């Protein structure tokens, strides 16, 4: 170190002594503590990006009256700012679930986000009423209902009826199960829900063990 004296700056009132260990130690310590203070200061700024208490509080369950829903129709309710669909499936629609089975990526819903009491291909508490979050598992668009099967749908002759996402063309059957080779990786999410009576449904809450 002391050999590179020729590079050391100096003037009339100062001369640099480079190999000063005391200086080095202080420099390192100052840098470490200063850095720690800097990181500490960043914490509240980064944390402010997280959802606020107000946003967290907005997730209350919603009650729905499904008495006016006709077979073959669907309704949409808002839960946590997201659309939740309730589809009242008729016989043909339930029948179509079997037909679509071979075209699906995950027919058994093994990697899907759904409550433990949702099972089988109907993915519903009552087969007739299908409840799911109407948000595509790809990038969060809301798919469009395409209930008409076959060529008339404009999707394809073998279309069994279901949902089509307008953004990237992911297709789902009438149980919200995704077709093979679609941009969406998973089946549509089923929210926790439970029946208060035959015609009243609560979304966002379930009775434990039901």
């Amino acid at each position: 170190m002391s050999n590179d004296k020729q590079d050391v700056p100096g003037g009339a009132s100062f001369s640099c002594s480079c190999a000063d260990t005391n200086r080095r130690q202080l420099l390192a310590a100052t840098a470490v503590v200063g850095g720690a203070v800097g990181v500490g200061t960043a914490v509240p700024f980064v944390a402010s990006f997280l959802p606020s208490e107000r946003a967290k509080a907005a997730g209350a369950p919603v009650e729905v009256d499904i008495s006016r829903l006709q077979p073959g129709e669907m309704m949409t309710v808002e839960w946590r700012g997201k659309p939740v669909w309730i589809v009242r499936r008729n016989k043909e629609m339930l029948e179509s679930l079997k037909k679509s089975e071979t075209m699906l990526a995950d027919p058994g819903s093994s990697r899907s986000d759904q409550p433990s009491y949702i099972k089988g291909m109907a993915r519903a508490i009552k087969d007739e009423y299908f409840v799911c979050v109407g948000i595509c598992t790809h990038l969060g668009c809301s798919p469009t209902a395409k209930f008409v099967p076959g060529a008339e749908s404009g999707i394809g002759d073998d279309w069994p009826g279901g949902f089509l996402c307008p953004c990237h063309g992911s297709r789902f059957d009438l149980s919200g199960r995704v077709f093979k080779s679609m941009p969406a990786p998973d089946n549509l999410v089923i929210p926790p829900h439970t029946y208060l009576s035959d015609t009243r449904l609560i979304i966002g809450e379930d009775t434990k063990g039901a």
Partner: protein
Amino acid sequence: MSQINALVDKGKEVLGWVDERFPLSSLYKEHLAEYYAPKNFNFWYFFGSLALLVLVNQIVTGIFLVMHYKPDASMNGAGIPVAFASVEYIMRDVPGGSFIRYLHSTGASAFFIVVYLHMFRGLLYGSYRKPRELVWLFGMGIFLCLMGEAFFGYLLPWGQMSGWGAQVIVNLFSAVPVIGPDLSVFIRGDFVVSDATLNRFFAFHVIAIPLVLLGLVSAHLIALHEVGSNNPDGVEIKKKKDARGIPIDGIPFHPYYTVKDIFGVSIFLIIFAAVVFFAPEGGGYFLEFNNFVPYDPMKTPPHIAPVWYFTPFYSMLRATTSDFLPALWALVVVVAGLSFVSCKNVWVRRLCALVAVGTYWGFFGLTVFGKTPALFDFDLLGVHFGKGLDAKFWGVAMMGGSVLLFAFLPWLDQSPVKSIRYKGGLYKTILSLFVVSFILLGILGTKAPGYAFFGVIPGEPVAAVCTLIYLCFFAFMPWYSRLDKTKPEPERVTWK
């Protein structure tokens, strides 16, 4: 006459006073009067100064828009979101407001047109090559900031395209393994695109990114003026200097290029004004029709597409499905193999092998090209080791990566010449294919999935092929740029 002389003396005195305190004259000389630019600039060299003009337009119009705009997603008395209504307030109730708003919205598209042409100029004449690597990298930074500005700004009108566009792009981040879902909540500040999202995007759009952008633009210009401008012949004018040390083929930027750029600006302004006054919607490409409907988080419009300047990259995202991964892996293997063969360094060779194996696992997991079930699966923090990573993640990686690929150009291009004028047929063919692919991807990105050209040529395979061509342009550049039969560069620039 003596009065005028007295005035001139007075002026010199004032200038002297300033110069003792601030390097005004030397800055002026360094960047304008004694910055020597090659005399053979052509049409393509207008776009740098035009980009600066559009930047100033965006900043000035932006400041005035902020005076009236309200980033507020709550509903007003008529059931319209306040943010959406405040844009219409600007359009109708603020005197001159519609003009300022159209200047800003048209300016956004004009910015990308100008910047894409500016970057294409770089591709044509090798402006990214030594010693201008940092000019190019600062430029890449500007391009990324611009994309950020466009994305954050697009949420502000709070229309259907604003909301759903933000929803899709923010959800891209949820594809990142392990931290993804939390990351997208972190970006939105809520579980859905909401008021919190609107407010932070507003902050990014009006202050955070513009500050970074201005810094990068300064760095871009300082770096450029340090090394000097390239030119259509790609030869260094600094190699041939006269007795005074001035490049023989250089002319002072001011007045020669200032007057030339004023002419360029006036032509640009004619086109710009024609759009602002006669077609501010740009046929639905500059202002999307669906964005005249307030954001409804319950209903995605039947056809959503990003604004045109994002569509080439968006198309590549869409093309990256699980069916596409085998082709992508084949490309990775060929590039890794070529690097392995042409590089003797053992660490580079190990890296090549690692990349080939790693991407195989990432694409297909422990399966045979994704066609067979996984040998076994084991799940750690949501990553399925047997199945590899989702095609969704690779789509996102593709979109980000395809933008960043431009940053590697200075090191990928191994041609002995810089300018297209002296490059051979091979390079010209590949560049043409690249440009055609880029445009086709852009067109496809504006269309709904399932679109077919002329109703018969299905869009998906076209997008897949174009994506591969786009990638090949970069991936094989080190080899084809060396194979290319180039012509000898001239000693001096060609002029008239």
